[in-house]
């Protein structure tokens, strides 16, 4: 029993050496890239901080205390307080939760749409033309103005339905449907290449259905470019959300993200610049670390770079 397990483990390590699985590629990419290693560390730290932080640092982020308004850093309030005496650290932690949740959710949505459209366009020749025209059309849309318009139009409707989830869903949907185009193009290209390989031909000749070929044979083989798209997608979603919030059209003040905290801090920039610095730094560090990871991944899967 045990021996079998060892044998299997040994075999899979051997396989991993010959045909690196996507996760192996991730590991190799990160291991050999200093920036990505630091980036992965910083990103993990931020994710853990916003997930576990509020459990340890239990001050209510919405608790107002007018006795301690606009304070600087102190032991009681490590990042100071805002103009209503709310604790900045607590607000940063809860704001980070929402910002990262938006980032992940919007990335998953845009990835889902992008992969579906890309794979279908690449696999079914009939649909290739129309779907790629659709992609081109979306690429020609003025995305930021369009997002602002969408939020302006549907904000009140969704807020009436549920004040917190409504705006969350709206922003995730908005970012998701305006950012899938690059993924779709990349996935289509990769699908076109994989489709011509022998194992797909073999599967087709055995009478395997199109859906089965796509999920079992094509998707596993194009995972690496999808992972690059995913990291870039998170970075893009976080920036877009914070931009919308910064323009006053994102999350409301009673449900603030990093972008909204920054927007609220702008009016107090002369009294307490720290209110702008902390949220801005959090956004920038998150995006920078994710971009470094994405960069390393791209280097790892790009054969021209790998061969050097």
């Amino acid at each position, binding site marked *: 029993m045990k021996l079998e397990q060892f044998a299997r483990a040994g075999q899979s390590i051997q396989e991993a050496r010959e045909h690196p699985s996507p996760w192996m590629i991730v590991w190799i990419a990160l291991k050999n890239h200093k920036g990505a290693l630091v980036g992965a560390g910083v990103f993990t730290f931020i994710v853990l901080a916003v997930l576990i932080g509020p459990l340890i640092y239990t001050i209510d982020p919405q608790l107002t205390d007018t006795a301690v308004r606009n304070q600087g850093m102190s032991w009681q309030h490590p990042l100071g307080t805002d103009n209503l005496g709310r604790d900045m650290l607590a607000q940063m932690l809860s704001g980070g939760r929402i910002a990262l949740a938006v980032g992940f959710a919007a990335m998953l949505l845009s990835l889902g749409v992008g992969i579906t459209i890309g794979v279908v366009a690449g696999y079914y020749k009939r649909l290739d033309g129309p779907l790629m025209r659709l992609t081109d059309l979306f690429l020609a849309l003025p995305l*930021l*103005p*369009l997002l602002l318009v969408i939020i302006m139009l549907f904000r009140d409707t969704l807020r009436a339905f549920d004040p917190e989830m409504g705006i969350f869903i709206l922003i995730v949907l908005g970012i998701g449907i305006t950012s899938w185009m690059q993924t779709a193009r990349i996935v289509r290209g990769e699908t076109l290449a994989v489709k011509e390989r022998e194992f797909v031909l073999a599967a087709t000749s055995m009478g395997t259905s199109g859906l089965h070929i796509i999920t079992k044979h094509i998707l596993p083989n194009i995972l690496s470019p999808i992972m690059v798209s995913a990291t870039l997608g998170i970075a893009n979603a976080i920036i877009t959300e*914070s931009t919308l919030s910064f323009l*006053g059209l994102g999350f409301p003040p009673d449900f603030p993200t990093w972008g909204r905290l920054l927007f609220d801090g702008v009016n107090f920039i002369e009294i307490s610049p720290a209110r702008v610095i902390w949220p801005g730094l959090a*956004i920038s560090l998150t*995006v920078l670390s994710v971009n470094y990871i994405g960069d390393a991944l791209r280097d790892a899967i790009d054969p021209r770079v790998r061969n050097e």
Partner: protein
Amino acid sequence: MLKYLSKRLFFAVPTLIVISFVLFALLDLAPNDPTGNLPQTIPQEVREEIRESLGLNKPFHIRYFKWMQQFFVNEPLNLIEEVTGLEIGDSESRLRVRSWLTRSPVVDLIIERLPQTLWVVGLSYIVGIMIALPIGVISAYKQYSWFDQIGTFISMVGFSVPTFFTGLVMIIIFSVTLSWFPSTYDTTHVVKDFPSFWFQVKQMTMPVMVLAFYNAAQLSRFMRASVLENLNLDYVRTARAKGLRDRSILLKHILRNSMLPVITMIALGVPTIFTGAIITEQVFRVNGIGQLLITGIQSADIPLVQSLSFLFAVLIVTFNLLADVIYGILDPRIKYE
């Protein structure tokens, strides 16, 4: 060439029509009423009259075609009249796209705001290109040197950090702490002598630098990649073999070839910097079209928002077309089939 151009145009026109339809439908069918923002004291009959005057009680397709006519026929005619001073047809009773908020024609509002945006955005793009190209070339030529390492790091920071944060950090450092530059942009300022010119330079420095830094970050990485791709090609080896100096190979041969994709990139980037200017204008309170869009959105001024978004779409499609054409002209290897 002509065949290629007409083929591209053949795609561009339907794209624009579909986009105009999407924008119109999105704004028109949304649950929003332009009379909703009017004071509650206005009686119901007057409200109906206002709706009538806005043409809101007509069916959807008629409103769409009217809007199209106003945007593509009436407004261009007005522009031509204003520029040439000629009077074409009955210009007094011609319908115009009017802002719900100010009741003035949208096109006039845009023309009033455009110079500020063009100055800030245009200058920042030029500065960005001038910074990015030499940095890209040097970091590719000296790949993995300290210059390349630092340049890569800075450009990574440059496009990861959102422009509103760079802008605010600059405000904190240079206007709040050091008070070198004003934190807001005064559009009413008139340049008439040297001190007022100097003030203009000072107030433009920060918005221009923020956008330039962001543009340069993306462009320099692209330039670096493009030069790197060319460095190992056969024609470079040939040039070396016949004894040309490195300097002339780099500046005459490699630079020209690696500029091809970069120029396309520069053309493609023009519309995105207009949308990027929305943020910078908001940070520095520049009174440009980006800010016009934001105020329009905040006050639910639908005709204004429709026209501005469509203008951005026209910019994107035009510059995509332009990028294709430039690429075709510069690179004779491209076949127009």
